[in-house]
């Protein structure tokens, strides 16, 4: 890759999470040479892949803050974006549960903040109204803040859709490319990676928990990001309607607390904890964390069927000391656009973050709009959404849609092939899983992983022993039988 030393870009975006790809997608409206550098083998591998999947209404953030503004704006944009880019989003509403009269001022404060932030249709419900709406809320409920504009989204689908659409509109993507150093030379930036050096006029720093590291390479106004771990349990679809809205406790010091929510795919999600850790790769779950998830969730929701847990996971929020989004140029580093401290409500805000970042770049680079910008993107076809006749016709045309690979989620070979063959297609088992849900069901890929590996090997023309779970050294098999005898 050394030969590419002189590659010169208008914009380099560090990080293929939702912030980076939302920025890339908005930027792709303009005539620009831009590239996303991602250290993992796929987009959506960091904070963006392990979170609550909530599109917050916007009553949590302090009025006047960037968080408040972008959350409310992002929430407004999400619905149209989900139609344009074909990812699942449902405006199911949320409830913040208050369990005693003493907590009422806290609930009122949230209501007031929401109103100040411009959140529409907020309402404080009494006990009976809450239980009428959600019979599985704890009997100790006193009142709740109801926000009908809150929603749920599939974070993988959102992230992947943004990336695919950006790519279709001309943004380059380089994977397995880890930024090691950034220097400013003659008003431009030189970015050294494990795969060669890149030069660019502008940098977008959307590096999640590592955004402080890159910011601090170019600016004397230091920032500091702590990885704040959140652990979750995901329950089987049989538990998916235990509640029909996102149920929060009253917010505490470390965030919005342990929520219980249906997911867009009909599972039930419980979590997260909030625990600050040193290790920015510390996405492990812990016994204490998982126990805390269960005990805290049970304070607000009764009869949680925790026997239906199908998996647990942890994600890291990028918490900056100032607890506010940092978007824009540091005074002493012109051309370096931070997109840092993007913790909750980062997912909700990402459409607005992209809009804001692209806006800054457009102004500085005097970018012209493309005439041929393609705003729409088609997701992977979900045969479940077809009528029986349409589905039969599809299978006649493409028999791979008649071959079920993942029995739990009923995912066909046709969908898996699409996931591999489309722009920025899947290269690993997790890549397939995030795009199609194959392996995400109750057996957790026990049945389908060997079959999916076979399809990947065939399509990518590599051997089965080269197939990985998630790139890098995550090989799934170590060789042939008896090879070590």
């Amino acid at each position: 890759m050394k030969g590419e030393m002189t590659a010169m870009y208008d914009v380099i975006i560090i990080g293929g999470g939702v912030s980076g790809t939302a920025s890339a997608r908005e930027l792709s409206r303009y005539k620009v040479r831009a590239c996303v550098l991602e250290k993992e083998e796929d987009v959506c591998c960091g904070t963006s892949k392990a979170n609550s999947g909530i599109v917050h209404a916007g009553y949590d953030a302090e009025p006047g803050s960037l968080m408040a503004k972008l959350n409310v704006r992002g929430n407004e944009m999400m619905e149209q974006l989900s139609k344009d880019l074909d990812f699942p989003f449902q405006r199911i509403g949320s409830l913040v549960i208050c369990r005693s009269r003493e907590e009422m001022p806290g609930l009122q404060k949230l209501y007031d903040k929401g109103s100040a932030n411009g959140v529409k249709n907020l309402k404080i419900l009494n006990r009976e109204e809450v239980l009428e709406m959600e019979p599985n809320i704890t009997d100790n409920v006193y009142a709740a803040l109801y926000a009908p504009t809150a929603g749920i989204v599939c974070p993988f689908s959102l992230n992947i859709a943004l990336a695919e659409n950006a790519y279709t509109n001309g943004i380059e993507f380089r994977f397995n490319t880890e930024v090691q150093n950034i220097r400013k030379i003659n008003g431009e930036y030189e970015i050294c990676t494990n795969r060669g050096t890149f030069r660019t006029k502008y940098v977008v720093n959307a590096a999640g928990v590592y955004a402080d590291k890159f910011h601090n390479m170019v600016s004397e106004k230091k920032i500091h990001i702590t990885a704040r771990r959140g652990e979750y349990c995901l329950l089987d679809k049989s538990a998916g309607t235990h509640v029909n809205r996102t149920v929060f406790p009253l917010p505490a010091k470390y965030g919005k607390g342990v929520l219980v929510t249906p997911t867009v795919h009909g599972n039930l999600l419980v979590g997260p904890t909030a625990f600050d850790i040193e290790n920015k790769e510390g996405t492990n779950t812990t016994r204490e964390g998982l126990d805390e998830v269960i005990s805290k969730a049970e304070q607000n929701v009764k009869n949680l069927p925790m026997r239906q847990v199908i998996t647990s996971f942890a994600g890291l929020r990028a918490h900056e000391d100032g607890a506010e989004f940092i978007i824009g140029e540091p005074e002493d580093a012109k051309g370096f656009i931070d997109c840092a401290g993007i913790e909750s409500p980062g997912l909700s805000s990402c459409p607005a973050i992209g809009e804001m970042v692209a806006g800054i770049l457009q102004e500085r680079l005097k970018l012209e709009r493309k005439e041929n910008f393609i705003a729409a993107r088609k997701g992977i076809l979900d045969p479940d959404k077809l009528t029986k006749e349409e589905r039969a016709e599809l299978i006649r045309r493409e028999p791979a849609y008649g071959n079920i690979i993942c029995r739990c989620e009923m995912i066909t070979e046709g969908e898996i092939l699409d996931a591999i063959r489309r722009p920025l297609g899947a290269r690993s088992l997790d890549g397939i899983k995030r795009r199609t849900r194959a392996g995400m069901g109750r057996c957790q890929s026990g049945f389908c992983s060997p079959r999916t590996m076979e399809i990947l090997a065939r399509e990518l023309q590599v051997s089965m022993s080269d197939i990985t779970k998630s790139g890098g050294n995550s090989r799934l098999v170590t060789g042939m039988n008896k090879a070590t005898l």
Partner: protein
Amino acid sequence: MKNYDIVIIGGGPAGLAAAVSAKRNGIERILILEREKELGGILNQCIHNGFGLHTFNEELTGPEYAQRFIDEAEELKIEYKLNTMVMDISREKVVTAMNREEGLFEIRAKAVILAMGCRERSRGALNIPGYRPAGIYSAGTAQRLVNMEGLMPGREVVILGSGDIGLIMARRMTLEGAKVKAVAELMPYSGGLKRNIVQCLDDYRIPLKLSHTVVDIKGKERLEGVTLAEVDKTGKPIPGTEEEYSCDTLLLSVGLIPENELSRGMGVKISSVTSGPVVNESLETNIEGVFACGNVLHVHDLVDFVSEEAGTAGKNAAAYVKGELQTEGGQEIRLNPADGVRYTVPASINTARMGEDVTVRFRVEAVFKNCCISAYFDDERVIRKKRQIAAPGEMEEIRLTKEQFQKYPDLKMVTVKIEEE
């Protein structure tokens, strides 16, 4: 829409035996729907021997055992479709299925036999903390990779759970060149057959660590190691007992769950103990003409008993189609599992519908030494079987006969329990 007398969901050992039996009992139009590319089910990856001791009086491998039934089904010209996924079964017994050639299609059946088998419990169901790297497999997935694809999941292995597949895989991985460092079992006893502990662990000096579990998983990309700890009587890890094991593979053999999503979808009542349908003496579910057998009904240890049970289901489904099962009258007797007995299959017996006898199968909930298995007809003990040892890993059975019931014309309930000798 095509019509069949009996549609059998699943072409594994249960589905095959049920089909053969139904055909031998005079039913012509039988169809087996199988999602895999060949008949035989999980037996195809069970290349070890020990199958068929009860049925054929010889030791066969899994594929050999399956072949006996496949040959018989072929001889009897029983129809089957491979690579075919059943998507839905309606209460009216319309089966919606899908494959590459025919697309989505519907079949109407007079009777349905559920024989979908079971799946393995996953790591997620256990909520084991740690990272989520490559190298964590359920034992059956590893078995498929090794035995069907010739691929090794890893080189240094720890196994959690001493279910039979885990034990079998400890031996297989060793034979194929891996080092199996330990088998950890949460319970103070193994969940597998005694013969498998001897032949798969003891013979290869693989330590079985009872009352142990995995408390941490290390490695971000590929598994690097696990931490085992001893557990107390409630199953909670005891601090200070942690031991590190470096390994690149963790196999899980922590239980099997009957796959009843289709059954639930059609309204079949499921037992919370077995996770299988609640059935009567004919192995018929709460929906008339819908029968269940094999691991979808309750998880078995030995395929011989699956075949036997499925034969009964096939015979009864045949009787149903011929209109011979719908008998009025008779005594409705409830089977009541008590004192150390977790469940019984069947859950009830009708004396008019039953044949000469009914085999009642069940599992005990702990290890009992020098005990008796007793059956009480209401308050009177009628059966008392001495057992040196009864363990959850080995299915038990008693046989109840028509003759016995005739002596108790007012009988309401048979209680099956474990008693001290």
